[in-house]
């Protein structure tokens, strides 16, 4: 029964991904504490490991409040779009040879499509809140994600060119001789930068910059809806790490250990790297962020694409 197996796999994925995303909040806070020479949350359970559970219980019992001046249906819809769009992207990620929900021949495009859908969550949240901070955050999010989506797509085309396929498992198998991080190093760097900007994580969290916009697009959100935004953000971090692993770091390939262990190990190290970035880098100004994108990242990504195409045409093939 392939259908039954598929349904079981989907259920297992959701049951693993959601708690992992919640645990990631605790993990990030502990790691940040470690780098900033303080403890972080260490009270609930051994090493504070149950902190996320405590937070979850608190957040579930909060009053699910919708501001009277908000656009109600859109206000309720916005957080769900974000979490769902990110969750959908996990369907095309091949974790090891057998473990993938849909090994589609447009897998990479599906990932890009779902990232562009996730933008709606933030924009609509900002608009429907009817609050100037939220609106500013939503507008920043729109400009930032639309711009960085462009470089993200262009930076991936080199990988597609080298592997000759949009299917993610083909891309992994094409890296058996050499991980794409070496021939596509520029694409790798641009993809990581764009990935952080897409999931609006620090240092590119300008849509929710708390020093200037209180909390940006989710200023009016509380309780379970706020938790959904949080969930979407941490799922996004996991997704970007998995995509970098798949596209540039050889996915499940590696000696001795079973494939799934290699995949999870690489993903875990990348997540730690994202947390380190958060601890190490200050937030740029918004115009600096966009200028950096359009004036530096886009030309470099295009040059990388042309160079890859030229080498592919003259060299191999």
């Amino acid at each position, binding site marked *: 029964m392939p259908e039954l197996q598929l349904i079981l796999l989907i259920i297992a994925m959701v049951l693993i991904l959601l708690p992992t995303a919640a645990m990631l909040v605790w993990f990030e806070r502990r790691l940040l504490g470690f780098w900033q020479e303080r403890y972080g949350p260490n009270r609930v359970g051994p090493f504070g490991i149950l902190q996320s559970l405590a937070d979850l219980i608190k957040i579930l019992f909060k009053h699910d409040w919708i501001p009277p001046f908000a*656009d109600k*249906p*859109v206000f309720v*819809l916005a957080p769900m779009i974000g979490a769902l769009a990110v969750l959908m992207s996990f369907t095309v990620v091949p974790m090891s040879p057998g473990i993938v929900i849909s090994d*589609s*021949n*447009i897998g990479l*495009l*599906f990932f*890009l*499509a779902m990232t*562009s*859908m996730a*933008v*709606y969550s933030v*924009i*609509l949240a*900002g*608009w429907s809140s009817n609050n100037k901070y939220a*609106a500013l955050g*939503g*507008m920043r999010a*729109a*400009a930032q*994600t*639309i711009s960085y*989506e462009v470089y993200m*797509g262009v930076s991936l085309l080199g990988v597609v060119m080298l592997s000759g396929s*949009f299917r993610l498992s083909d891309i992994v198998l094409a890296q058996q001789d050499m991980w794409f991080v070496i021939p596509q190093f520029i694409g790798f760097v641009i993809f990581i930068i764009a990935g952080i900007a897409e999931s609006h994580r620090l240092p590119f969290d300008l849509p929710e910059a708390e020093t200037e916009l209180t909390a940006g697009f989710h200023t009016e959100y509380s309780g379970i809806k706020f938790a959904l935004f949080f969930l979407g953000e941490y799922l996004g971090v996991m997704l970007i790490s998995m995509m970098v692993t798949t596209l540039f770091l050889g996915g499940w390939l590696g000696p001795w250990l079973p494939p799934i262990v290699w995949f999870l190990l690489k993903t875990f190290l990348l997540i730690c790297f994202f947390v380190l970035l958060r601890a190490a880098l200050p937030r740029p100004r918004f115009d600096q962020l966009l200028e950096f994108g359009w004036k530096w990242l886009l030309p470099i990504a295009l040059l990388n694409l042309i160079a890859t195409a030229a080498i592919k045409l003259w060299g191999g093939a």
Partner: protein
Amino acid sequence: MIAESLFYLSGAIALIASIMVITNKNAVHALLYLVVSLLALAMCFYLLGAPFAAALQIIVYAGAIMVLFVFALMLFNINSDDIKRESKWLQWQGWVGPALLVLVLLFEITYLLQFHPVWSAEPVQLIDARSVGTLLFGPYLLAVEIASFLLLAGLVGGYHLAKKMPDKDKQT
């Protein structure tokens, strides 16, 4: 069989959503219905055997162009007055002309389908990214070039609108 019923389901969703786009009085809600309609269309493309076109439909139309529309609408600050004004515009007299025109189209298509069926019962042919690419840069190269002209013109226009005007006082 399942694919066929899925196709008709997404087609129906696209239709209903499109009707909601026109009749909805709140501009942002109407735009959201338009996004739903585009997604349903992408689903139709996929089921017709064009996965690449489906993905591009989502990335370009639903993902980029509609986001820009929502972005522009956010700046308009729509309130209940606008919705009232919108409902004044949506009276039945406005529907007569379009309904008549669509009726003519309906007659045309029923006539064509009834007496000159052009489709064939060939199985669905999968059109992947490679064949789209070879078509675009083969027989349809001219169309691609013309589209790039249009985009360039748009870019130049946008640059002109956004650039800083030279200060008149300093010139004189």
